[in-house]
């Protein structure tokens, strides 16, 4: 290998390895959680070993009953029972109480013949094949059920897959809402950002720097500061409502609800993401010679014709870059919706956080993350195709 190539590889290697360990590995382990997990399996490993040879048609053999009768109480003792009962309950309600009760009562019950009879005595559901099917699928190491749930699908008893009834769908509507909000925010950023990028690019140098500062200051200002600012402005007793009341446009009881709902999410997200639209547009517009428009005018084009036929087509790369950047950032947005979105302004990222922190359904959180990540990667490849990541400009 030539010397120069060896040196350049050696220079890149430290960061490459660092990103691999601190970033790629966590991401890969998260994605694997969406389909493969041993946490629940390890609550009842012996039972699962027996069930592995089971055909799922009739009740499992006595060995399975004996194993679960031993493993449930010990799982209760070392506090891992909730993993199993929670996962099983998500598949069928009632499973949590069945498992908890069984784990409590097995040690206190007299041994009456076989374990199968003992468990059936504690709860007759143990004599139902369906219970065992749920136990096996809840504790399976490899499962696609998180993906099914994330896509609002459900497996039927006969093995086919159907969409959930309309009123039970949660995640697909949220995904659509996230896409719709991201698209609308991108469009708003374009409508607001395009004219100001034009104005800055056309201004004489001194004024150009000043106007650019007006875009760069919000760009550099902390996200939390900008979110706080919008709370101050938009809340019921906030600056805008007070202003409108003082001017007599509103009465005290008709103050506008502009925050902790979708409006709040929209306004704050557009404000936060606008600089990401303006800056790429500006850098493309700077490179368009101004005398082109004059040339088109001297050839008889009206200003509108000149803009549509000469100027606008040349700004398309900037529009592509800005729109994709805004869209990619919007689709994964977490902070602003969480703080100013209320309950109606939440997006997919907030649902992921909810399943990690509150419902503790990590498999589902991982499946939702994977779906979001795939969407972003597709957009990123598109971005790279259209603009080229190494041509991206900062600030």
């Amino acid at each position, binding site marked *: 290998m030539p010397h120069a190539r060896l040196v350049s590889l050696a220079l890149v290697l430290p960061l490459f390895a660092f990103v691999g360990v601190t970033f790629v590995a*966590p991401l890969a382990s998260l994605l694997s*959680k969406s389909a493969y997990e041993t946490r629940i399996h390890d609550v009842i490993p012996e039972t699962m070993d027996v069930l592995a040879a089971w055909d799922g048609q009739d009740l499992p053999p006595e060995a399975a009953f004996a194993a679960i009768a031993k493993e449930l109480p010990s799982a209760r003792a070392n506090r891992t029972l909730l993993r199993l009962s929670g996962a099983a309950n998500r598949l069928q309600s009632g499973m949590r109480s069945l498992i908890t009760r069984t784990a409590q009562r097995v040690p206190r019950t007299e041994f009456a013949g076989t374990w199968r009879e003992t468990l059936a005595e504690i709860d007759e559901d143990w004599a139902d094949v369906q219970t065992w099917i749920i136990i096996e699928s809840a504790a399976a190491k490899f499962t696609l059920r998180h993906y099914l749930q994330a896509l609002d699908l459900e497996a039927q008893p006969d093995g086919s897959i159907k969409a959930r009834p309309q009123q039970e769908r949660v995640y697909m509507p949220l995904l659509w809402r996230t896409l719709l909000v991201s698209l609308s925010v991108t469009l708003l950023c374009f409508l607001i950002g395009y004219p100001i990028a034009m104005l800055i690019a056309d201004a004489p140098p001194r004024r150009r720097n000043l106007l650019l500062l007006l875009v760069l200051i919000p760009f*550099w200002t902390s996200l939390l500061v900008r979110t706080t600012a919008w709370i101050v402005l938009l809340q019921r007793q906030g600056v805008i409502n007070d202003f409108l009341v003082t001017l007599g446009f509103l009465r005290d009881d008709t103050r506008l609800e502009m925050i902790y709902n979708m409006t709040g999410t929209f306004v704050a997200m557009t404000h936060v993401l*606008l600089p990401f639209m303006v800056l790429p547009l500006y850098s493309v517009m700077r490179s368009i010679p101004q005398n082109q428009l004059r040339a088109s005018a001297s050839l008889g084009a009206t200003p509108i014709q000149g803009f549509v036929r000469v100027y606008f087509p040349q700004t398309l790369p900037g529009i592509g870059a800005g729109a994709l950047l805004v869209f990619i950032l919007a689709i994964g947005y977490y902070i602003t919706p969480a703080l100013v979105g209320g309950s109606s302004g939440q997006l997919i990222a907030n649902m992921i956080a909810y399943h990690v922190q509150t419902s503790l359904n990590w498999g589902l959180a991982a499946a939702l993350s994977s779906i979001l990540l795939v969407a*972003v990667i597709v957009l990123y490849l598109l971005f790279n195709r259209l603009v080229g990541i190494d041509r991206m400009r900062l*600030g």
Partner: protein
Amino acid sequence: MRLRRLGQFGFNAYCALAFFFLVAPILVIIPLSFNAEPYFTFTQGMLRFDADAYSLRWYETLAEDGQWLNALVNSLIIGTAATALATLLGTLAALGLASPAMPGRALIMSILISPMITPVIIIAVGMFFFYSSIGLAQSHLGLILAHTALGAPFVVITVTATLAGFDPTLMRAAASLGAGPVRSFLRVQLPLISPGVFSGGLFAFAASFDEVVVVLFMGGIEQRTIPRQMWAGIREQISPTLLAVAVFLIVFSVLTLLLVEWLRRRSSSAALAKSIS
């Protein structure tokens, strides 16, 4: 002609509104942080420019509150360490990537840049699970590593951009004068690309200083940074002290911005000098 002037006027008015939308929310915070009353709006007295309606009480509360000072210390420790590491690794990688002999340049670049475009919620959740399993969650070290990964792409991008304007014949000239590769790097190349390195470092520091999602998932009580403390303030007991903190952060970001612009001008004038000579 009249129509045209009307159009021009409409365009300018529209742009003025857009700039107002961008800047006004940030500017509004500054006077409100001097409010004598615990409100988030202008009182009658403030509008009359009554001196009594203004006070420094929220800044005093801030100074007395040990939590905020603690958060500042945490932010500085994590930000400085992550910036140093990101700048070192990022600059080395950019130097390697700039070499024409580098194989698979585009692919490696996309991998190194990927932390910047991955939704931060996914990064935070992934790191939370992974770092918990190796015992690094709820530690300063864990957050430093996380913020380094998030900040390094900025360094790679800015240094790569600066290197594009670097004249490689200078290195050959240094070699012909008897300097070894390390010496010619330190004495010739590094001084010329240093504005890019510094501004990449500033970007990395700003990214860490403003990062809240990873801290939210991975940090414990001991690792509360300024943005984490602000998050708690907005969520739990929103008080005008937050506005005082916000004013400090605005001042900080304006200073960072001016520094980055100054560095950019220096590096572009260096590139200009090169193109003339």
